[in-house]
């Protein structure tokens, strides 16, 4: 099979219209030439598609999924970027998932998929190479477990072992603003509420499988570079963390650095940390590790949760994947030191299809509210939330999804919304309307989350800048320079949907070499420039979504609790924000 396209395979965009239940393939090879793929291409396409004023959950609001030229071609280039408008904070929705999705899209011949419209009744879309079918999903709408949705679709659809199954749980169906999309079990478009967008479109699931081939015009060079990269990824120390304990390795180290948010960030370290450490999970609960298709690392850590359900040694078992952020959100930040309780809470969120970081932060805020007697059991429907107590938390998760009263409905809209309505904004730990991930390391983290395009630690790794500052001392300006440089670099990596865990391997020089074996000529400098441009485009899109610098609020909690690099000072942070703004050339909005 040969391709006449200038870039092997990089040609098509698949448009799916859920209102009309129709699809079309559009040749946009010129777009791939300019943007390559991933976040760069998806952002460009969203700027094209977005009609000003369209709400996050409006039918016309598009969702764009995009892979890149290296997906399915080189090891650990496994991600798919999703660009949408976030129903949680109204601005840039951006999330990444791995699993089989990247490879399935690539081998199906659709590096990019645009979803538009909304169905009148629940549907799922099955894509098998050139065959696209819309199918009634009413019978699987409302299922209590998103894991079961996968099981059912696996038995209905072809493409075993070559397909990817995206699906939402009840949280997405009910429009919980931080609902996730589960990808192939254990992977997710987690943050910023893509699940709610799927739900609003009545799109329960999407199955995609592909069996096409790609050819490298420089096959010999390709084989050689593949071998080199594979060796680097598997056999050197560069990736040791992910081969071993995985991200949860950081639980103990961040705790030691006093940067692990505990009990709604009332503290930066947790006395019960030992039993929720990566080491403890690995030694006592880890049963296997799994990979995304095309990645030899196997960073997905799966634990077995065994629960007795009678006194006669009868057990039910669940396989639950865990990670640093999940242990923070449903462990230290809820004062939970029982690893089984953490796994049980993760499993509940996984089945409901909820973003775990947001859920954990919201539960933590509600707990503190109740402790401070600012909420009564009338609001919580009798629940008494208490640090370390798993049962009420499990019930609260169920109630958030069911939203039986105004209070739980408010919790389903995020901690920003709930604290605006019920108070406690000073300890609602969000930045830019997104519940914070598990770091309280200092200025870099705070500025990074506040100013990062999607308010994620993955935008610019502010926590990493802080750790550098902690070890060798950096000026605030140096920290800001690091953040900006890192965010731009990541925009490049994300345009190629390279897993960020492999960022140390895929330097601009290596990416340039890898692209050359596909007939794409981009110098390292051009790639860095591309990252810069994508970063600017994302801000342009944010502005169109109504983002202004002035909307930023900085809850007092961030200043009360000492971070790794010490207590943060309001004035210092304001100064740093201003410096960041100037360096990025971001304009303040004109007062209207």
């Amino acid at each position, binding site marked *: *099979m040969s391709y006449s396209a200038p870039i092997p395979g990089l040609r098509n965009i698949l448009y799916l219209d859920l209102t009309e239940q129709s699809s079309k393939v559009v040749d946009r090879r010129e777009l791939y030439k300019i943007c390559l793929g991933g976040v760069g291409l998806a952002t460009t396409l969203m700027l094209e598609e977005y009609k000003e004023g369209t709400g996050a959950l409006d039918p016309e609001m598009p969702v764009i999924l995009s892979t890149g030229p290296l997906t*399915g*071609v080189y*090891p650990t280039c496994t991600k798919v970027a999703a660009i949408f408008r976030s129903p949680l904070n109204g601005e840039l929705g951006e999330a990444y998932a791995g*699993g*089989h999705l990247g*490879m399935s899209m690539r*081998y199906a011949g659709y590096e990019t998929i645009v979803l538009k419209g909304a169905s009148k009744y629940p549907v799922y879309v099955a894509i098998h190479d050139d065959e696209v079918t819309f199918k009634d999903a009413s019978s699987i709408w409302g299922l209590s477990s998103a*894991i079961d949705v*996968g*099981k059912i679709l*696996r038995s209905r659809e072809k493409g*075993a*072992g*070559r397909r990817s*199954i995206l699906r939402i749980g009840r949280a997405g169906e009910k429009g919980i603003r931080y609902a996730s999309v589960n990808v*192939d*079990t*254990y992977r997710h478009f987690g943050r910023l509420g893509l699940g709610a967008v799927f739900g609003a479109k009545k799109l329960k699931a999407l199955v995609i499988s592909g*069996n*096409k*081939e*790609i*050819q*490298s015009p420089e*096959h010999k060079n*390709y*084989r050689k570079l*593949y*071998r080199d990269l*594979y060796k680097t990824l*598997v*056999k*050197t*120390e560069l990736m*040791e963390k992910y*081969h*071993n304990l995985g991200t949860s390795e950081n639980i103990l180290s961040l705790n030691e650095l006093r940067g692990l948010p505990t009990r709604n960030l009332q503290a930066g370290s947790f006395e019960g940390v030992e039993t929720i450490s990566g080491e403890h999970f690995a030694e006592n609960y880890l049963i*296997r*590790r*799994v*990979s*995304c*298709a*095309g*990645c*030899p*690392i*196997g960073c*997905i850590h799966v634990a077995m949760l065994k629960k007795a359900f009678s006194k006669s040694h009868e057990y039910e078992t669940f*396989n639950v994947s865990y990670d640093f952020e999940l242990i923070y959100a449903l462990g230290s930040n809820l004062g939970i030191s029982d690893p089984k309780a953490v796994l049980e809470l993760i499993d509940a969120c996984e089945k409901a299809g909820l973003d775990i970081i947001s859920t954990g932060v919201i539960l933590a805020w509600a707990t503190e509210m109740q402790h401070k007697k600012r909420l009564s059991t009338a609001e919580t429907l009798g629940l008494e939330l208490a640090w370390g107590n798993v049962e009420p938390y499990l019930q609260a998760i169920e109630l958030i999804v069911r939203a039986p009263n105004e209070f739980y409905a408010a919790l389903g809209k995020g901690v920003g919304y709930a604290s605006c309505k019920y108070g406690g904004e000073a300890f609602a730990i969000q930045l830019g309307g997104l519940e914070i991930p598990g770091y309280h390391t200092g200025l870099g983290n705070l500025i990074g989350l506040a100013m990062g395009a999607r308010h994620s630690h993955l935008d610019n790794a502010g926590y990493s800048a802080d750790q550098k500052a902690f070890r060798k001392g950096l000026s605030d300006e140096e920290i800001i320079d690091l953040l900006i440089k890192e965010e731009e670099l990541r925009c490049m990596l994300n345009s190629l949907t390279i897993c960020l865990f492999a960022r140390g391997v895929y330097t601009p020089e290596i990416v340039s070499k890898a692209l050359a074996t596909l007939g794409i000529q981009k110098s390292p400098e051009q790639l860095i420039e591309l990252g810069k441009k994508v970063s600017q485009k994302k801000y342009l899109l944010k502005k169109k979504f109504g983002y202004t610098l002035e909307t930023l609020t900085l809850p007092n909690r961030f200043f009360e609790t000492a971070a790794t690099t010490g207590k943060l000072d309001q004035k210092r942070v304001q100064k740093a924000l201003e410096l960041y703004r100037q360096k990025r050339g971001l304009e303040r909005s004109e007062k209207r």
Partner: protein
Amino acid sequence: MAKRLKIANQARCIGCYSCMLACARTYYATISLKNSAIDIQTSGGIESAYVSIVCHACIDPPCARVCPQNALEKRKGGGVIVRKELCNGCGNCMEACLVGAIHLDAEKKAIICRHCGICIQFCPHEVLEMLEVDEAGEEIKREKKDFSKGSEK
């Protein structure tokens, strides 16, 4: 000495597909999963274990017996050598292989493992091993992969 591939430690498979990509890359000069002689399958999604489907190196291979073209020549140490130019794509061999280790490529030629061991070089968890075997297929020696360089895993 003849060699054959063995699925030694199936439970260690992480489902990375590196072996499949290596096989297709080597013999078909493509980047794909479909032209690989070894097939990694899920048995109920990634929640459950992976399965590796590949030629078991039969000493008296049934696939060779049913080939009307004599395109499958018995291989020393087990399995067959495919003479592509003779294969007519009838699919009898696929039927005869209970393991399901044979499929056809785009030109309707049988794809069957040659026991060359390229996949082993791309297995990060020692799922696959090469055995040195005698003509009757009996194991003489096991080739251990060299993990002395780099991290212990």
